[in-house]
């Protein structure tokens, strides 16, 4: 056992106390010391960095160029992955609709649009080899899109619903009021030949009637946004906002049966 004299013990205790006080004081003096050293240390760091920048200029330049290339590559990759992700979402939606729907459908992608302003249509990447025939109706999971007017082996042309050449027999879902829906080359569709006492209101939903046999019954066409009187005064018309945004269709479903 270590035996200490009274004097040694006093010195030891005093040393421990001094040591403890020193450590306690460190936390108190750290802040002012740090604050006073911040500027000189910052300046030293800056000088060091600038000196390193000059000394390793070439290495940094090469590294910078390589990182820029990598950055561009990764940006491109992110963009393409984002595009794949969005396509995946759309296709999943279309597939879910296809599985739920009682109709026999063929999915196709849009590859081109008409070159003029006087017709509205799309060219799709499936044709007669995939079983698509002239006159088949075209839909998306949101609603009616149009009708196939021409097919080749691998492509088909579809006239969109907002083309004035296309007419669809539609009914008001609520009141079963019939009318002929056709395009205006504008953003809205028009439901014509409504009798004076037609039971139709704004925000009514219009669906295909199935009467003209070209389109399956019950496919959503759009919502009534305005009702007006024809110029002749004999009948009324309703403007319909289509359920499908025709300007950004990328994938469609062709109703085969």
């Amino acid at each position: 056992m270590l035996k200490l004299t009274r004097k040694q013990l006093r010195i030891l205790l005093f040393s421990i106390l001094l040591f403890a006080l020193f450590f306690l004081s460190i936390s108190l003096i750290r802040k002012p010391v740090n604050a006073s050293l911040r500027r000189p240390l910052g300046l030293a760091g800056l000088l060091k960095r600038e000196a390193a920048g000059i000394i390793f200029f070439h290495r940094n330049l090469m590294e910078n160029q390589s990182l820029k290339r990598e950055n561009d590559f990764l940006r491109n990759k992110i963009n393409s992955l984002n595009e794949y992700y969005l396509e995946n979402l759309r296709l999943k939606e279309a597939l879910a609709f296809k599985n739920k729907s009682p109709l026999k459908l063929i999915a196709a992608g849009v590859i081109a649009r008409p070159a003029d302003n006087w017709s509205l249509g799309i060219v799709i990447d499936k044709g007669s080899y995939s079983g698509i025939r002239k006159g088949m109706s075209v839909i998306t999971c949101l609603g009616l899109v149009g009708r196939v007017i021409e097919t080749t082996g691998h492509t088909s042309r579809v006239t969109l619903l907002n083309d004035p050449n296309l007419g669809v027999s539609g009914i008001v879902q609520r009141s079963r009021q019939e009318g002929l829906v056709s395009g205006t080359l504008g953003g809205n569709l028009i439901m014509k030949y409504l009798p004076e006492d037609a039971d139709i209101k704004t925000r009514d939903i219009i669906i295909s009637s199935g009467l003209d046999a070209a389109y399956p019954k019950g496919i959503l066409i759009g919502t009534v946004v305005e009702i007006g009187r024809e110029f002749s005064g004999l009948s009324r018309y309703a403007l319909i906002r289509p359920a499908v945004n025709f300007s950004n269709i990328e994938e469609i479903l062709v109703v085969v049966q």
Partner: protein
Amino acid sequence: MRPQPVFILTALFALLQITILEHFKFFGVRPDLLMVAVFTGAFYLRLKPALAVGLFAGIFKDAFSLHLFGFNAVLFPLWVLLTAKLARRVSIEDNLSRALLILAVALLNNLIIGLALVYTGVSLPLGIFIRILILSSIYTALCFYLTVRVMAKWAGLR
């Protein structure tokens, strides 16, 4: 001048016309980039290559139109021919005058196509007919003006 830049421009504009131009609609109308290419050819090329550009653009436009096949294939070379005749008699040197000429021709072209459509039984509301007629022509003329300015820098068109 060499016809290659104008041929490349025509091919590029043809591709743009049937693809992404849908996203550059202004009040629901697109510019007719094929007509821009045709007139670039009419002003900067000799008659034969300009007619070739006109014929290609016309056939291409007809191939990607849903109705009235053949109209553009006839009209575009006709505009090239008339522009060449006019350019021989009247000096049209500055781009603004050329753009104004295109505006007039685009209006006429749209009017012919629009009236032919109406004649075939398509019922077009008057407002939409006029909107397409006027806005599309102005948009086309503006695109021509921009195109020749860009081409002057890049391909040295004079």
